[in-house]
């Protein structure tokens, strides 16, 4: 065991690779949260009156709410008054092409291994890169606009497509939904907006890279994806964050609307800074993600690989309203050191003949806590609803925990709902088998973990799958209990 412990030690002591910070002159809001700050943000972003009113309404509602405590995570109370709610890189003129982008920024992306130019040329991905709060570069916009696809930053959408924003903003996640969603509604800074018109199949994967940069900035993105009748889009979101000592709050909201026959595939690789190995620092990730299959035969699929954050609190959900609509959730959540994750999904079956599938793979190592919390609800009129859920947990080390909280609420006799869960560690016999054949323990663990998570990784688009596998290996290799 001592060798295993050594490997474990080496790996867990590995410093966060993307942990560095670049000085950018930030255009910041004063610290604190009040009505004035919200007006300040709104003015700063030159927002129309209706949006300011919407923000203020959310803020006033938020004031009446209290912080949720039901999740299986523990962290010091966040001083929301001690945060800065707006910070943008100081570049007032919008860049027309990549050449105009701050070279320092480009350097960040290069160090992350996502050279915008490279990606643009080789991979055919349009990257809407978000640094802190304002999106700085959007590529492939022209190709997309020929098809009528709108893919831009949220603030741009507010100015250029107010009718769409007005119609769909808050329609899936209402401002009254939960504490952090309400907070996001009040102070959201920027994010991505995507509209796929009727009958269009988006020819490329749309991708956004998020980064947190300025210290003490709560980041509040807002993403809105609208897929009109018969359209298809695959959307990618990925996160890495520089090392920080202070905890940072990230409370994003993602809304997806799928009309009749539309399909949206949303993939995330999340790698926020998880804190050092003694559990100091790290990002608090409190995200509300929800999609609605509003039309018949529509489909929403969530795929997530979660490796980062000190505390994760995230439940990508599907409301299956249209008849024959489909919701899917594939997740790999890895926690190490002192990380805590409380994540899962909600599948709300409202329409007839709706189907959902949940595959959740949790891996906990070190002293981390990993919880799956899911809900499958079949409403009274949702005849012939079908759900299959599988949540497996893999434990590495005897100091970690794995927890499962599935809620299954069925109100229709024709529903078929199945749930199964297992918890186990990597079998000694499996490791022995590999060792015997000349595979080192470390490689064997990587092999087994990859096999374990494969069902989910297979759902990711190619470009992401590679990155996800690297992340898994980085976080876990050699962590034999």
């Amino acid at each position: 065991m001592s060798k295993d412990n050594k490997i474990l030690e080496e790996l867990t002591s590995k410093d966060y690779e993307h942990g560095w910070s670049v000085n950018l002159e930030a255009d910041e809001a004063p610290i604190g949260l009040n009505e004035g700050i919200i007006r300040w943000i709104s003015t700063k972003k030159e927002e129309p009156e209706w949006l300011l009113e919407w923000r203020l309404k959310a803020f006033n509602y938020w004031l009446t709410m209290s912080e949720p405590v039901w999740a299986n995570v523990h962290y010091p109370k966040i001083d929301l008054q001690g945060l800065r709610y707006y910070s943008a890189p100081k570049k007032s003129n919008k860049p027309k092409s990549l050449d105009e982008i701050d070279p320092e920024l480009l350097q960040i992306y290069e160090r992350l291994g996502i050279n915008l130019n490279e990606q643009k040329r080789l991979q055919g991905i349009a990257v809407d890169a978000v640094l802190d709060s304002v999106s700085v570069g959007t590529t492939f916009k022209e190709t997309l606009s020929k098809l009528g696809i709108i893919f831009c930053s949220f603030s741009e959408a507010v100015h250029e497509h107010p009718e769409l924003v007005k119609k769909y903003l808050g329609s899936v996640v209402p401002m009254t939904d939960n504490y952090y969603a309400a907070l996001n509604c009040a102070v959201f800074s920027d994010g991505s907006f995507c509209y796929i018109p009727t009958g269009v199949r988006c020819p490329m994967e749309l991708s956004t890279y998020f980064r947190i940069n300025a210290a003490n900035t709560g980041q509040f993105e807002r993403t809105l994806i609208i897929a009109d009748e018969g359209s298809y889009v695959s959307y990618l979101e990925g996160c890495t964050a520089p090392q920080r000592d202070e905890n940072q709050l990230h409370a994003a909201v993602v809304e997806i609307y799928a009309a009749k026959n539309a399909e949206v595939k949303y993939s995330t690789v999340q790698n926020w800074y998880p804190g050092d190995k003694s559990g100091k620092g790290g990002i608090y990730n409190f995200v509300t993600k929800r999609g609605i299959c509003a039309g018949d035969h529509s489909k929403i699929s969530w795929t997530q690989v979660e490796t980062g954050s000190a505390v994760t609190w995230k439940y990508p959900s599907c409301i299956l309203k249209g008849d024959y609509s489909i919701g899917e959730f594939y997740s790999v959540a890895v926690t190490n050191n002192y990380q805590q994750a409380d994540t899962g999904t909600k599948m709300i079956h409202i329409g007839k003949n709706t189907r959902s599938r949940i595959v959740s793979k949790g891996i906990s190592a070190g002293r981390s806590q990993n919880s799956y919390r899911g809900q499958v609800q079949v409403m009274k009129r949702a005849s012939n609803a079908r759900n299959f859920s599988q949540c497996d947990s893999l434990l590495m080390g005897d100091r970690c925990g794995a927890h499962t909280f599935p809620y299954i609420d069925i109100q229709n006799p024709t529903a078929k709902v199945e749930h199964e869960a297992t918890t186990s560690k990597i079998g000694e016999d499996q490791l022995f088998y590999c060792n015997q054949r000349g595979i080192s323990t470390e490689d064997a663990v990587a092999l087994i973990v990859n096999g374990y998570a494969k069902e989910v990784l297979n759902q990711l688009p190619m470009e992401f799958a590679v990155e996800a596998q690297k992340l898994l290996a980085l976080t876990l290799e050699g962590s034999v209990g």
Partner: protein
Amino acid sequence: MTTTTNNNILDSILSQVPSGSSFSDLRESSSNFLEKKGLPAIKEEEYKFTSITKKLENSISDFSFAKKSDLNSETVESHVFDAFEGDLLVFNNGSFEKDLSKISNHGYTLSLISDAKPELLGKIAKTEKDPFVALNNIAFEDGVYLKVPKNQKVEKPILLLFLNQSNEGQVIHSRILIEVEDNAAVTFLEDSVSLDDKTYFSNMVTEIKVGQNSQVHYNRLQNESKNTITVNNTETDIHRDAVFTSVLVSLSGDMVRNNLSLNLLDSGCEGNMYGLYLLNGKTHVDNHTNVDHTKPHAQSNELYKGVLADSSRGVFNGKIFVRQDAQKTNAFQQNNNILLSEDAIVNTKPQLEIWADDVKCSHGCTTGQLDEEALFYLRARGLGKEQARGMLLYAFTGEVMDHISDEAFQNHIVNIVQNRLGSNF
């Protein structure tokens, strides 16, 4: 967090507790706990789908303690199931009726809690576990303390027959304490009967200690009237190499809440829980089970099955805790439900909380209908629709009833279930 009505219920129950009664420490700490905690509020997680406090408010008008009913041996005899052989303990609205019971005292000793004043009382079912345990602690008048001494095997089963009836008051508190010492074995049967259709609230606590290497079977049937509100807390401490098996069949009632906790305190012990709920009308049955693995090499199995017709509601919440020391734990849990009507509801939450790594834990949960192909198979062989359905449902429920450890009691329950499946479904 207590509401006013909630307090009213508490006040009226507490005001009837005779002063100067024994176990003052237990009663006092329970009062303090209840004063702070109150009865479960509407949105409380543990009682999320079973708003028992509201039910009590709406259905019970008189929170006085029910007086003993007039009972004679013929009435008692008529409620004992056929072919029963063994000792019979009769409870009249929670009070033990020595004269109506049949006690051989063979292999065990029986005394009133008020006489024996056992140390163990209140030590297994902890006050903080559930507000209704605390309520029982304060309000129980007396109960039975049953002890099986070391190396003793009780050959015949012991039947606990609870005869309940609203009688100048609608609240009944029953209390049982069972202590099984090392290397002993015993089987219990429990049957609760309503003497009429009047509404009452029965709040029962059963504490069981299973000593080293002992074997205890506890078979329970809940088939009271459609108007009863029942809360049942059963808590067991299971010691080294001991085996405890619980079989619980719930068939009727207005609202029934069962909390069953198995504390696996040492290695080598085994806990089994089997449950069946066969519901119709507006019956609401909520089963909360809790297995706490504290030491290595212990095992637990759980199988709960439900068939729900009309506008009945079944709630299942199974918790498995595996503590950090409990390596090499095997824990299995399964919950299957069949919904037969548009208005029936199932809420199930199989929950795993695992803090150790070298364990095998799994749970499964399904909700659906009868297999169309199986139905077709039977109908193609000339069975009527009702008959075919009855047969399949009986097979579904049989898996639980197979575990009832006394043959006569098993036949009794199988008969009731078969009648129900033949006529009502």
